[in-house]
């Protein structure tokens, strides 16, 4: 029993599956970060919704700013990370940076949409309209469209060899655009309407309101890092699944070819001698999956 495939199967069944082999994307680091984020968010919500007083001019609608402003910050941070990671992809040419760029872009879509939605829900009672063409809102709306285009390109290029490079170029090209968009919408608005509308109008922010805002900002950024970590791992796993499926297919094909040769050489030997060890091997992987802790 020295044929190649049986030898491999023997080696595989002898390898002990480590006790903490992870299923899913949890890890000690991500769990700690997740708990921190949840705690910060909980306290932040308590402050935003209950402890901080309603604004003198905006009444409770001002509470929407405790989500609107942090999500805007996260959206722009996510954008910056995607742009930076795209540059790194072209410079270092590693898969890691491509995965970071993609993960950050997806998260950016979530938070940019949230920023626009809360902005609209805030604008309706305060300004009377859901939307106004001020520089900040317009740039954020365009940012969303740029993100969506980038993610659409990633999906369309899925599985192609040069995806990382092309998406990186697309990311950088879109990133160049953002300062130009910002400048041009600024000029455009000042031409027609005057300065960008200040979110807080006449009120001064202070005390518990400022604290709520800061808390939610920190919670938002911690949440972003956690999401980035998890989404990065998901992207990494997706790449490994593709690779592994490919390797499996090749190994299987070789096994078939070898067993065909053996049947041709020894017509009386049962062709599927190596099947029990293969079954044991997949069984071991399956038990490993179900027995380890879930995050």
């Amino acid at each position, binding site marked *: 029993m020295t044929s190649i495939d049986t030898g491999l199967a023997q080696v595989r069944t002898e390898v002990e*599956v*480590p006790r903490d*082999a*992870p*299923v*899913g*994307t949890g*890890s000690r680091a991500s769990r700690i970060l997740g708990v921190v984020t949840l705690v910060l968010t909980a306290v932040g*919500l308590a402050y935003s*919704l209950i402890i901080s007083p*309603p604004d*003198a*001019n*905006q*009444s*409770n*609608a001002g*509470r*929407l700013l405790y*989500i*609107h402003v942090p*999500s805007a910050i996260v959206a722009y941070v996510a954008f910056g990370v995607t742009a930076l990671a795209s540059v790194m992809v072209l410079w270092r040419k590693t898969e*890691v940076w491509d995965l970071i760029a993609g993960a950050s872009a997806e*998260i950016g879509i*979530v938070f940019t*949409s*949230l920023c626009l*939605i*809360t902005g609209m*829900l*805030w604008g*309706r*009672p305060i300004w009377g309209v859901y939307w106004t063409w001020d520089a900040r809102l317009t740039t954020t709306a365009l940012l969303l469209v740029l993100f969506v285009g980038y993610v659409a390109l990633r999906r369309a290029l899925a599985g192609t060899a040069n995806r990382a490079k092309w998406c990186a170029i697309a990311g950088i090209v879109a990133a160049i655009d953002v300062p130009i968009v910002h400048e041009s919408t600024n000029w455009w608005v000042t031409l027609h309407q005057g300065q960008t509308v200040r979110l807080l109008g006449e009120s001064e922010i202070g005390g518990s309101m400022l604290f709520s805002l800061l808390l939610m900002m920190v919670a938002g950024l911690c*949440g972003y890092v956690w*999401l980035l970590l*998890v*989404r*990065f*791992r*998901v992207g*990494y*796993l*997706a790449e*490994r*699944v593709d*690779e*592994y*499926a490919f390797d499996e297919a090749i190994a299987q094909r070789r096994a078939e070819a070898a067993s065909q040769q053996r049947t041709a050489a020894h017509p009386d030997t049962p062709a599927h001698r190596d099947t029990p060890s293969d079954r044991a091997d997949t069984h071991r*992987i399956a038990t*490993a*999956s179900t027995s380890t802790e*879930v*995050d």
Partner: protein
Amino acid sequence: MDLTTIQLAVQRQTPSYWGYVLTGYGAAAVAIGGYVAHIVRRGRKLSRQVPTDKRRWL
């Protein structure tokens, strides 16, 4: 009239807008919660298809 009275008067006349606030916070919970559930579930599904030594980058 002193400042407090005016402020109180304004507060009495301005609606509380809780509907908008709760819609906004609810949308945030749904969007973020939904996204988290989606990627965690996807992560578990994918990691079952990969042998244990290849699951993590570090």
